[in-house]
């Protein structure tokens, strides 16, 4: 206001329009992740309402911004020389805010998989404690990898698991240290979003591991038998039936 900059300030600038476009793009992207179901690759399904809220708000803000630019007269420009509004945002800011949009559009959406498993963290020991004990009253054939690990953690005698029948869904994870004919059926557990996702896994013995590359989703049925795995005594699922299945709608387990 103290230094009026009359007509040197071209309006509306390219950057202003890009700002509107990014807002619009973000709205469409949030709507798309909801509609396509890829949202659950990123955040816990119980927070889907966040995306449902954000999508229309982004679209509205983008629309209003474009409308302002469309109807803006040069005199009005001076009204905006106040507060935090100093004309269009910088290229750096635009590029930074556009980054997640570009990443989301250009890179195919995938949940965390075997490549994100850090072998040293695989025991998942930190997560297993607590949990819902009511789960353990359900039919053990419906237990997930996480339920079994909780049961193991709560038990003082691992040999009690010998002969227990289980039916597990997860993706295949193997590394060089695994004995032949073994893999781990793995899930990521997530409470909020992938930032807190951690892998949990149970070892499986299955003769044809060569036919099972990492990241293959499998439904595996078998009976536990105590054995040595990665230097520890652990119940190993002796698989008698295994089928490859498509990636489930909710790839993560919610504790």
């Amino acid at each position, binding site marked *: *206001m*103290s230094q009026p900059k009359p007509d040197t300030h071209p309006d509306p600038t390219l950057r202003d329009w890009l*700002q509107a476009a990014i*807002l619009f793009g*973000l709205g469409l992207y*949030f709507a798309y*992740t909801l509609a396509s179901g890829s*949202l659950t*690759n*990123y*955040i816990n399904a119980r*927070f889907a309402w*966040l*995306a449902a*809220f*954000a999508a229309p*708000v*982004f679209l*509205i*803000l983008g629309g*209003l*911004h474009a409308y*302002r630019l469309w109807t803006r007269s040069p005199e009005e420009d001076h009204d905006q*020389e*106040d*507060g*935090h*509004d100093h004309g269009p*945002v*910088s290229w*750096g*800011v635009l*590029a*930074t*805010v556009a*980054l*997640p949009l570009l*990443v*989301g559009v250009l*890179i*195919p*959406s*995938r*949940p*965390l*998989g075997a*490549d*994100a498993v*850090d072998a*040293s*963290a695989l025991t998942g020991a*930190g997560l297993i404690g607590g949990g819902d004990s009511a789960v353990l009253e359900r039919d053990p054939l419906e237990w997930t990898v996480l339920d079994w690990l909780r049961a193991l953690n709560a038990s003082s005698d691992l040999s009690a698991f010998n002969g227990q029948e289980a039916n597990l869904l997860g993706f295949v994870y193997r590394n060089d240290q695994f004995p032949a004919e073994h893999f781990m059926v793995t899930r990521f557990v997530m*409470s*909020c*979003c*992938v*930032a*807190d*996702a*951690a892998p949990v896994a149970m070892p499986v013995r299955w003769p044809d591991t060569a036919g099972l590359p990492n990241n293959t989703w499998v439904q595996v049925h078998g009976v536990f038998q105590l054995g040595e795995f990665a230097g520890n005594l652990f119940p190993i699922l002796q698989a008698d039936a295994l089928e490859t299945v498509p990636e489930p709608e909710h790839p993560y387990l919610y504790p």
Partner: protein
Amino acid sequence: MLPRLLILAAGLIVLTLAIAAAGSPQVVIQTFSTRLLGIFIEAAPFLLIGTLVSGLIEAFVSRELIARLLPRNTFLATGLGGLLGFVFPVCECGVVPVARRLLNKGLPVPVAVSFLLAAPIMNPIVVASTQAAFGWSAVFWGRFLIGGLVAVGVGLVFAFGARPEDVLREPALPAPNPGLTLRVHLPARPSVVARLLQAAHLATGEFFEMGRYLILGACLAAGMQTLVSQDVLLALGRGPVVSVLVMQALAFVLSVCSTVDAFLALAFAGTFTTGSILAFLTFGPMVDIKSTLMFLGVFKRRVVVYLILLPLLMTLLASVWLNLNVSL
């Protein structure tokens, strides 16, 4: 502008090098993008709510209202100043101009300081995002307890004889710099629709300004989780003192808005001590690069030093004490 671009460029270079070093770029990029989008998708709606609320307050609420709400007793008012954020949810970017205005309006210095430091933590949006990230856990309660105590504590330090003219920069007193003034006296009382449009416009600008910090922070957190091995992080994150210092430095540098910093903290929760996570969540909202720059524009240098060092030391002490004495 230049430093920001430099930081951005340096980040991109480090990232590219790291990806090249980590072997299969396709795999690394895939995992990195999932982690980045996970934080962004969870956090962006909260940032949006925060900027909308701040835009609405800006357009509809007169700041003098805040001063009228407070009791006369300095100690009581300082305590309540720490809770004012629940009435006026502003994050660290919005709080400095408000606090300055309140000081000019005659609000006692300790009250303004406790408001300044507490409001970015003690507000409903931060409660909601912290709860989403950490549930009703020790981290959730600790954040508000430590944050509130430190803010009021620093406020009380200023209770001993500090007058507005001792803390504010000279030019800030009589004629505030137009770049930081708040539009309190709206000319000719615009219509509700006009104010709503103004709020939306302010929210848009703020979303981009703040979103930048969120996204750079999310890139760093996602890159760290993707590229740095668990063993290295554990080595750094298990030291009761070192982990706290690392997280405080990170909070300062990242300057992530307090409405969404909980989601970044989540990325460190598995490998870093609980005390250090709390230090990140309490020190970061009070002091970071962008709030320091705003402090310098409003307060005297000596005061800025206090405003940085006191929260730093208090959150450091609280966090290290927790790490050493309480198993969370």
